[in-house]
């Protein structure tokens, strides 16, 4: 019997565009996952702490304000400092293709750009989080 996959979805920074993250929250729940959504205006510290406290299997970050290059690496950095770098972090939003490789260097596993189907995201999470 496998337990449910636990996902933290978060909106770092001041961006209020939450249509995408809310749709993903709902799609992941419909796919049988347990989803904790932080709401908007979270600092990277708050997100990393929540990920650790909630013992999630994966963290999804959403940013549409253009601040992703600053905010996403902060989250992975803090997770690392707290010894939780094994929690995979993925992201999405208005993120130009040319930023993706840089974000990957900072440990963001994958960036989903606009037009991605929730099915692809669900599939990715299942493949990434291998539960015992």
């Amino acid at each position, binding site marked *: 019997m496998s337990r449910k996959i636990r996902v933290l979805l978060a909106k770092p920074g*001041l961006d*209020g565009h939450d249509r995408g993250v809310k749709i993903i929250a709902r799609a992941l729940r419909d796919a049988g996952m347990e989803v904790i959504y932080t709401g908007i205006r979270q600092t990277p510290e708050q997100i990393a702490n929540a990920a650790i406290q909630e013992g999630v299997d994966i963290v999804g970050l959403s940013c549409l304000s253009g601040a992703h290059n600053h905010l996403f690496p902060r989250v992975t950095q803090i997770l690392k400092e707290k010894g939780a770098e094994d929690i995979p972090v993925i992201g999405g939003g208005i993120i130009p293709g040319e930023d993706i490789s840089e974000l990957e260097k900072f440990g963001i596993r994958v960036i989903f750009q606009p037009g991605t189907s929730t099915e692809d995201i669900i599939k990715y999470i299942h493949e990434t989080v291998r539960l015992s």
Partner: protein
Amino acid sequence: MGNNVREEQERWEKTTLNKVLTKAKEREPVFKTTSQIEMERLYTSRNTDDIDYCRDLGFPGEYPFTRGVQPTMYRGRFWTMRQYAGFATAEETNKRYKYLLDHGQTGLSVAFDLPTQIGYDSDHPLAEGEVGKVGVAIDTLKDMEILFDGIPMDKVSTSMTINSTAVILLAMYIAVAEKQGVKAEVLQGTIQNDILKEYAARGTYIFPPFPSMRIITDIFAYCKDHIPRWNTISISGYHIREAGSSAVQELAFTLADGIAYVEAAVQAGLDVDSFASRLSFFFNSHNNFLEEIAKFRAARKLWAKIMKERFKAKRDESCMLRFHTQTAGCTLTAQQPDNNVVRVAFQALAAVLGGTQSLHTNSRDEAFALPSEDSVMIALRTQQIIAYESGVADVVDLLGGSYALEVLTNEIEEKAMKYIEKIDSMGGAIKAIEAGYIQQEIGDSAYQYQKEIETKKRIIVGVNQFQVEEEPLQNILRISPEVEKYQRGKLSRIKKERDQGKVKDVLAVLKKIAEGTENMLPPILEAVKSYASLGEISGALREVFGEYKES
């Protein structure tokens, strides 16, 4: 005549139509708009039997304004072509404004960065990474002086997308105009100043609803006496739609917010006819061409009735719904971005056929970043082609009288009214937002829309059909992290140069007035003139009013 059409239509259905339907089914069993309104195959005069021309449509420039707010519409003057722009610093944005004005844009529309919108200076820890990203960073009056340097504020009208800090930016605008020698009474423009949709859909709120509504009514009161040509609010459906609502929900929730503002102002002691003509609206123009045109027409008609019947407005101007339109950002695709030029053109055309007063056309690259200069040029040219080449601006309400459009206009009005009645029964828009009702409704529609795309019930060209392999888009506008450093440096210099004692005093006065009931505009004007920063002024108000937390 009507009977004849009915009989003839029945005959046609049994013969000509039936012959085809027995051989070939239609593409769908039912055809529906985004608002789940079922569209019939064919509309004839049979569908418009119960429309009374004089009652339901009337004449342009007259109640209920279904056909437009001016008698000559674009035969007199085109809509204002107003591209929303702002990025990085005031210095860079000022250059973009001059570029746009040089290319025939007729009004300005300021995009502010998120720290400015949420009341943080560029040196605040929460501003890290956000400075100059989604708009221009404004910390003090100095930035505003640079932003409008060389722009004739007595001639150009300016719209500012600013909400919880609208009162501060408006004060800065007045102060800069004064420095240019332009009197407040001639200033023309708009502040968005619509906090309710921030709670429901957009997210740049600071204070709880009650003090937020007080700031808004203070603005109404101040402007009617000092800046009579200023649009004191732009009650916005745009972001509600971007968050995923249907066309009907966009209309209904926007007008419900409008009702809440009018009620608040009336409760604050203002006579409805003293401020109502300065209320303006802001809608989205989405993909479904006919539904959008119908929505704009229904909006005018419904608001006119609300103002006359519910609020007993006496002046015609109080009943007139004037609106700005932006094409739907959420319909822009990252795939085959040049296709967005075509989407935007149709959406812009719908806005014009719906009688908009001003228009922003999105740029093709906005699914990636802020638009590049080249993309903005195409977007502006799209409007100019509609205006100068298509001929649609030569007739008032060109599609009025279309059977399908008139039926749809009425249906949207009825369905929106049902939502408004539901919101009334919950105690109004503020209560409905606090209960999460409006957010839930928007979220449900957004999810359904996404499902339709994923199951291919809804085709998005280039996204879920007709895909191609493509290279990443080049020449994307990038905001350098240097902007943040530059902005912080500028702020710290100003803080050193200004009269600290004066700043301390004006902020103390502001807090005192905020704690009482007097109008807050005068002390905020004093504060900005003494170069108190946006963050300091917002901070003072945060201390008095507290902060809103999303439930």
